[in-house]
């Protein structure tokens, strides 16, 4: 139920936006809960964008994971 899927905002019209779920799957979603701009990635749950995804944080997560692992692997407890 709490499933939410990332999608890219293509066009914003008031509280509605046309988004791309990838692979050419386009859909109109309600954006009343976020301040979405064209080019943003949003998390969509049951037809409503519930949050804007942070692309920089997404990269940072991957970098951090690798860093933690490298650090732990070279300094085992």
């Amino acid at each position, binding site marked *: *139920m*709490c499933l939410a899927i990332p999608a890219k905002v293509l066009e914003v019209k008031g509280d509605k936006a046309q988004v791309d779920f990838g692979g050419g799957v386009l859909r109109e979603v309600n954006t009343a*809960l976020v301040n979405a701009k064209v080019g943003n990635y949003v998390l969509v*749950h049951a037809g*409503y964008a519930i*949050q804007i995804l942070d692309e920089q944080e997404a990269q940072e997560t991957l970098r951090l994971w690798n860093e933690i692992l490298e650090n732990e692997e070279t300094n085992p407890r």
Partner: protein
Amino acid sequence: MTENTRYRDAALAKRVAERIRETAPKEGTVKICHVCGTHEWTITHYGLRSLLPASVEVIAGPGCPVCIVPASEIDEAVQLALKGVVLTCFGDLLRVPGSRKSLLDTKAEGADVRVVYSVSDAVKMAQEETNKEFTFLAIGFETTAPSTAVEILNSPPRNLSFLVSHRLIPPAMQLLVEMKDLNLNGFIAPGHVSTIIGLDPYEIFPKVYRMPTIVAGFEPLDVLFGIYMILKQLNEENPRLENEYTRAVHKEGNIKAQEMMRKAFNMTDGNWRGLGSIPASKLTLSKEYAHLDAHLKHGVKIEQGVDIQPGCRCHLVIIGKIKPTECPLFMKVCTPRKPVGACMVSSEGTCRIWSRA
């Protein structure tokens, strides 16, 4: 960011699993609880439990909003549908057993019960068919409640009312941590609920109950890292709240959504199927929007229903006390086609997920 393959990297997963094995206690066991059906799906679908050492157990808490809707609230919806109101709801709800029948049984008897993907579909239907009365059965946790709030605040059509059955997750987590015989050692907090409520509502778990608490995303690597972070905190004996899902969850959550929820709803005690009443865990319509309440508009109110059918052990599955396979009905009498208990109904119910594993 719509391709998630980077978060499913097998080589990286192997390395995390190796760290988990290194960090896991050599004696005794660690019991980690998540409270989200989507986490259970990730764990089961990607076989993550097979990567964990025997000393680390991950159990599923009451994270399926369909499974915890009490029979009395299904009974109310059934009664409304039988009165001639068009009952709209998410598809998962259709087979959820009421005290005597489900919404699907009611539909088979000729009532107008319609599945919608979103509350906005219910609004559209009510706008197009002004000669009929519509009710939307609004279920779900904090992830879903804001969408209901949007439509409540947006002057919905006069022929649409709401049966609000939304529930809140942190009070249920508190109930779990206070069940001493569950012996929990850490929480994986639900990522998408957290996009709305932020981090603060979880602070009490490390502070008051000394429970490591990690807000995690839903890719296999998110969950594995969540488990690893909990084990590390336990080793360091320094329980705290950490956010693994920073790409979607901010400390303050979604303030716009929180404000809309505050306007549309009040918080009250609520009954959860299999768990009983939990203080301040249910949303109802606020005074200002009471005219949209289907209870008042159509004179329907059922206080008590039959939540657990004879033989069903959903109430133990839902708190992770037993595994679905330990229920005598599992896949014998109770199957996805003919569910006895609510945990077998929704695609996020623990029994339903295990039925496919």
